[in-house]
């Protein structure tokens, strides 16, 4: 399944309400848990935190891409969240993060996992695109921006 197929309204949250890094991660995982994409909340959360402990996935320009391999999901899974207020995600540039792509994949599916992360890397190179997404006020708007059909 391509990344674009995974970007649905039920996998998007606008606005995120959490104000700290661990809470943002929890909020995104909770979204996936409540919509049936994740079976084991704690396992998914621990996997992402373990990866964050190795090095923050907060990038420049307000973007963060927390990700992990975990058996808590059966297939590649993504959640997108927007925090208009911004959250300290220990980003490379020291600025608050506003746009979050949480990606989880089972350990035995590295191909789709890497390809999806690479697609996110390409997308987030465009400041204009990121600004457009970050300014979205509804889940529907976020999905429409990505699909741009």
């Amino acid at each position, binding site marked *: 399944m391509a990344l*674009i197929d995974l970007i649905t309204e039920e996998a998007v949250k606008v606005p995120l309400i959490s104000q700290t890094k661990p809470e943002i991660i929890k909020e995104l995982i909770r979204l996936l848990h409540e919509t049936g994409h994740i079976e084991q909340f704690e396992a998914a959360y621990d996997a992402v935190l373990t990866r964050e402990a190795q090095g923050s996935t907060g990038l420049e320009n307000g973007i963060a891409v927390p990700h992990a391999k975990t058996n808590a999901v059966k297939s590649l899974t993504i959640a997108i969240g927007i925090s208009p207020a911004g959250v300290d995600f220990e980003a490379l540039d020291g600025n608050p993060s506003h746009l979050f792509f949480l990606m989880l994949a089972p350990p035995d599916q590295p*191909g789709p996992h890497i390809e999806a992360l690479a697609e996110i*890397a390409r997308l987030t190179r465009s400041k204009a695109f990121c600004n457009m997404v970050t300014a979205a006020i509804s889940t529907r708007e976020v999905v429409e921006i*990505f699909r741009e059909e």
Partner: protein
Amino acid sequence: MNGPLKKIMVYIDGTEQSITAAQYAICLSRTTNAQLTAIYVVNTRALRDLVKSRIFLEAEQAEYQQDLEADADRYLNHIRQMARQKGVAIETLKSSGTVHTEIKNKINELEIDLLILGELSTIRSRRDEFYNESERAMRSASCSVLIVKDEDRVWEMYESLT
């Protein structure tokens, strides 16, 4: 060899869609006597891009590369077994680099007549960042390309080969 199709190549990327494509390729090779090659490309270009974009740490690059190498071996072995079960000879290739470039190069090197790919996304975005590697391979291949759909029907075709 008889018929217009002499050499077929199927791209395997570890997805269900690519396994279905392999089943179809095996059926087609059986009926046309075309030589069949399966290729898996370890996407080292994506790994480098992920480190460059700081999404990956360097340690992750090494770890995921190992994962991809193991994935390649596992899936190519599985495809070999599937082909063997139907009495079809198959050559398997493991390559690394930029996926669509490697596929294009192998098509030219091996003089492939037909590239077979798994089903692409049904959502058509105008954003070209969403062209995944299969779609890029389809666009850049110098030979004809067949996109395999209808997993259930292909499974029946494969199962019915004796």
